[in-house]
């Protein structure tokens, strides 16, 4: 199928305004060219890899990433400071520690109830749940069969997109308790070590720009 569909696949991914799953690409092609077109998800995967190789060779500023169960075009990290200058990404604040903590519990334990979340965190989590629901990073899916039938919370596609994950199973697993115990330094601040300086420079720039530029709150 190679070259005939390469450009079409590229065009479909390029013009989709949300990550497009392989199945949807196939559906679009079959819709136009007929059901008998022989094209598989594997073909799509290979084509995307091939396209990305070309973008790399051509030193393009963007490539196709796998995110939220689909494919999407996105700029490369090297251009962060320039695109950060004009992007609306900058108007989103980073999530708080409390929000990240709550999210990681929901992500690994989903579907999960509020009492279960609170039992792990040791604090009331109403405010956190409201905030995460508002940001569409989590949602409600049914009720638990336990006493009181509390509501169940799960993560969304928006969650995957926010953290740049392709599938929920791509989340790194929480370490086992035994492993945690073997640490010489029990509570090392991994995040601070791993966040490189570049990040902070960009964050600063983004914040400076935020305060100086007129806020545009389009969410689309």
């Amino acid at each position, binding site marked *: 199928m190679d070259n005939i569909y390469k450009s079409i696949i590229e065009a479909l991914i*390029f013009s989709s305004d949300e990550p497009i799953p392989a199945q949807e690409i196939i559906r679009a092609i079959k819709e136009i060219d007929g059901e008998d077109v022989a094209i598989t998800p594997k073909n799509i995967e290979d084509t995307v890899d091939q396209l990305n190789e070309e973008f790399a060779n051509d030193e393009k500023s963007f490539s196709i990433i796998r995110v939220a169960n689909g494919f*999407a075009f996105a700029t490369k990290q090297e251009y962060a400071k320039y695109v950060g200058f004009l992007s609306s990404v900058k108007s989103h604040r*980073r999530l708080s520690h409390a929000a990240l903590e709550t999210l990681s*519990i929901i992500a690994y334990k989903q579907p999960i109830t509020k009492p279960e979340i609170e*039992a792990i965190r*040791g604090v009331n989590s109403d405010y956190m749940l409201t905030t995460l629901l508002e940001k569409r990073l989590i949602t409600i899916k049914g009720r638990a069969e336990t006493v009181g039938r509390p509501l169940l919370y799960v993560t969304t596609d928006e969650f995957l997109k926010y953290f740049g*994950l392709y599938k929920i199973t791509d*989340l790194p697993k929480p370490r086992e308790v035994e492993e*945690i115990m073997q640490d010489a330094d*029990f509570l090392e601040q991994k995040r601070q070590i791993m966040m490189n300086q570049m990040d902070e420079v960009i964050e600063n720039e983004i914040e400076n720009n935020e305060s100086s530029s007129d806020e545009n709150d389009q969410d689309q």
Partner: protein
Amino acid sequence: MYKIQLDTFEGPLDLLLFFIKRDELDIYDIPISYITKEFMTYFRLMEKLDLETAGDFILMASTLMQIKARMLLPKEVDDKGDEIDPRMDLVNALLEYKRYKEMSEELSIFESQQRRIKYRGNFVADEKRNPDELSTLLKNISVYDLVKAFKKAIEDKPEEPIHQVRKFNVTIEEQISHILDKTDFGREVSFLELIDGMFEKIRIVVTFVALLELIKMGRIGLRESTEFNDFVLYGLADG
């Protein structure tokens, strides 16, 4: 003692983990008296009492004191005759919490990376058809959206706008008179007795505020308890 910002901790578990690290304690053999004392000191010195979590700190304080009490009693044994360590549940909770705290740090790294990329920005020039209602109508829609839509539909109902004001079903005034009742004629009551049977955190918190208010007014006094409970309040003559 280090001066620390209490509001940088996500909750009581986080604070306990901090003590364990700072003092290089063995998590499987936590010196419970010591850590309770530390916890209570910080709890009292909270620079800002965050109302959402004050109740949770109170709860942890009482848990710690309960463990402390059980440590002094003859050892309990389980079905197999093995000794039960009263600290076991707390240790498990701490370890479980730590697992997710670590994960949140990983998520934070993903977040930083993701903030450095940007998706294609505008699609004005790409003509797309109107959506096919039947296939895309409720894509990515969940019961949360349903509830939200219902609430909005009801609220936007033109004829009879409903203005809902959320009220606490408990006031500081009410709790002040409740405490005064309990400590009338110089009677004494421990804080934990006072909040016994209060299930909503907000009620405990408001009671705590009322308590502070009364101390300020000189209507009640506080003293250390001989028991393991943290403090006892007693009534003072009207001043």
